[in-house]
């Protein structure tokens, strides 16, 4: 089986699904001839032609808004927003329409579409190229929001997203686009949406993360393991609708929790997870839940960027803190 990085795994998923389902159309800035600025769509225009892999003018609202029309017209569009920093230009279409069409029309009109979106910091990119505003998306009823953290999951989740009858926003952590390789099978397999995954078992503390923070959380778990702390690490994988049962079950076992995200702290998704845990497992909690997050600041430009992101050291400190409470 081929060892692929996440970019290759996503590319494979798109290629296989586009062969399977003629209704799939990719559209966005530079997705065609160039194959995307990260090469996720590399080679697909040559394979499927310029009508199915479409280079668009520079206009995020139009990319999403016309994709909506394409979906109503019977296609399964996969619009790409080049960086999450440029998502806000498309938020009007997403908030007012993409997330609402099914409900607004009581099911008469539905929108199978997958909005792809590289996101996150850690690659020393320019201003506006390191954003992680997934909490905004998770607050919108009617959307599904998926974030893979490994090449294998990336393929399986993207295929599920492409087969979902409802709009999915698919966030790709660009920091691990090429950072990891693992075996990714060709052909059909899927990972169901809204299922979290225990990536490392433990009984002392539950650590919840997603995207590029999963790797950091696992490293933190490794850091504290020699101290006799067995941390259970959960990769949330879909942030909306969220599989809180897996989290709550783990917390019932461990009694302690640390939530990690790179997005800024206030109003980030850790807050929601903490709220659900204390709603559903209050009496199991032996210590306050901790969150390790980006600061409540704009992501710094590259010279200070490394100070911003949660890392194994910070996570391990939080783990020790809740364990020793």
């Amino acid at each position, binding site marked *: 089986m081929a060892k692929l990085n996440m970019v290759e795994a996503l590319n494979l998923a798109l290629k296989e699904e586009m062969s399977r389902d003629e209704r799939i*159309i990719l559209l966005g800035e530079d997705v065609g001839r160039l194959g995307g600025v990260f090469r996720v769509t590399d080679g697909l225009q040559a394979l499927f032609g310029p*009508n199915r892999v*479409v280079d*668009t*003018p520079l*206009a995020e*609202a*139009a990319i*999403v*808004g*016309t*994709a*909506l*029309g*394409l*979906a*109503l*017209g*019977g*296609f399964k*569009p996969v619009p790409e927003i080049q960086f999450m920093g440029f998502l806000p230009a498309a938020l*009007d*279409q997403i908030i*007012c*329409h993409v997330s609402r*069409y*099914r*409900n*607004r*029309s*009581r*099911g*008469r*009109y*539905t929108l199978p579409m997958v909005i792809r979106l590289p996101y996150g910091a850690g690659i020393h990119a320019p201003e506006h190229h390191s954003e992680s505003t997934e909490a905004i998306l998770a607050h919108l*009823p*009617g959307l*599904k929001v998926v974030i893979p953290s490994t090449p294998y999951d990336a393929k399986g989740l993207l295929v599920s997203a492409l087969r979902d*009858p*409802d709009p999915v926003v698919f966030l790709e952590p660009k920091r691990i686009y090429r950072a990891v390789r693992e075996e990714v099978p060709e052909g059909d397999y899927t990972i169901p949406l*809204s299922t979290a995954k225990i990536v490392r078992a433990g009984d002392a503390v539950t650590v919840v993360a997603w995207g590029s923070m999963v790797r950091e959380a696992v490293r933190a778990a490794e850091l504290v393991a020699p101290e006799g702390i067995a941390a259970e690490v959960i990769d949330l994988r879909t942030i909306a*609708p969220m599989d*809180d*049962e897996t989290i709550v079950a783990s917390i019932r076992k461990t009694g302690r929790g640390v939530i990690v995200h790179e997005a800024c702290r206030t109003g980030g998704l850790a807050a929601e997870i903490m709220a659900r845990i204390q*709603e*559903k497992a209050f009496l199991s909690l032996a210590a306050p839940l901790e969150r390790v997050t980006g600061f409540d600041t704009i992501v710094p430009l590259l010279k200070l960027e490394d100070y911003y992101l949660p890392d194994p050291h910070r996570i391990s400190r939080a783990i020790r803190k809740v364990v020793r409470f």
Partner: protein
Amino acid sequence: MNLAEYDPLRGRRVEVLDFTGNIIAPDVRPDDLSDDYLLDLYDRMVFLRVADQQALTLQRAGRMGTYAPTLGQEAANIGSAAVLQEGDWVVPSFREMGAMLLRGVPLQLIYMYWMGSEWGSHFPENVRVLPICAPVGTQTLHGVGLAWAAKLKGEQTVTLIYFGDGATSKGDFHEAMNFAGVFQTPCVFFCQNNQYSISVPRSTQTAAPTLAQKAIAYGFPGVMVDGNDILAVYAATKEAAAHARSGRGPVLIEAQTYRLGPHTTADDPSRYRSAEELKAQEPYEPLPRVRLYLEKKGLLTPAAETERWERYQTLVKEEAKKAEAAIPLRPDDIFDYHYATLPPYLAHQKDYLHRILASSGEGTDGQA
């Protein structure tokens, strides 16, 4: 008619029937628009006007929510949608009740929408009309996407996209027009320029002397038309639709009309426009000129006219009653249409609502 002859930069607009009921440009009138067909369209204009009045009555009686009247815009509504064929799409803004009715949306549903039920946008399967769109201008992109889909599928259909003069200021309008030009999508952008965006007059909306000339920015034709002249609207839209249908790309139509009523039932136009201005516009409204023409042709008698209005008054009242009766007051509906499958947390919240409704206020179960 030839669109190219109506270069907006040279100030020409399409006009066929003047406000006294005389045909001033017989050559522009399309062949298929016979006097009989015109009578049929007049009929629809009357129906629209009566349905509109009924909505105002319902709103005043507290039986309908805020409503956006079409008074004065009947020709623009009906004349444009009348050119469509089977398989064509209508993408409305919120002031296109006439176009929606003509393309098969039951009045009952439109009333249900304004009465405050999402079921009002649950159109019959064979009706190719998108739901009413409140955020101004955003629907133009959906229309371009629909037209693009038709093109990719090799369908010979056209998408007719409606919006107001105010909408032309929005970024979405620009992006939609530009995508339509680039991908040569078979659509017609139909601007109902009713001279106002709530209180803001057309002159404040843009410094361009015409809205039609905005098409130049996107490399396709734009044309002005007397939006109160149903024959002109029909002629121009027919030509534009033929243009789009035959693969020659999109067209922008600026239908110059006038909003005779308030912006919505929540609006008080006396704060921003004078009684004189309104009065000066009344002679140009779209219905009398058609009536005068048809009367001259002997196709309409005062008796038939009276009968028509009365019949429609009865009809729209029935539709209103049917609408009210048909709106289900099911709390489940709040939850059941967000996803194809109800996720557990929404099932839980639905359950909570049921318990709340059942409770006397003394229950002990929380929402979580």
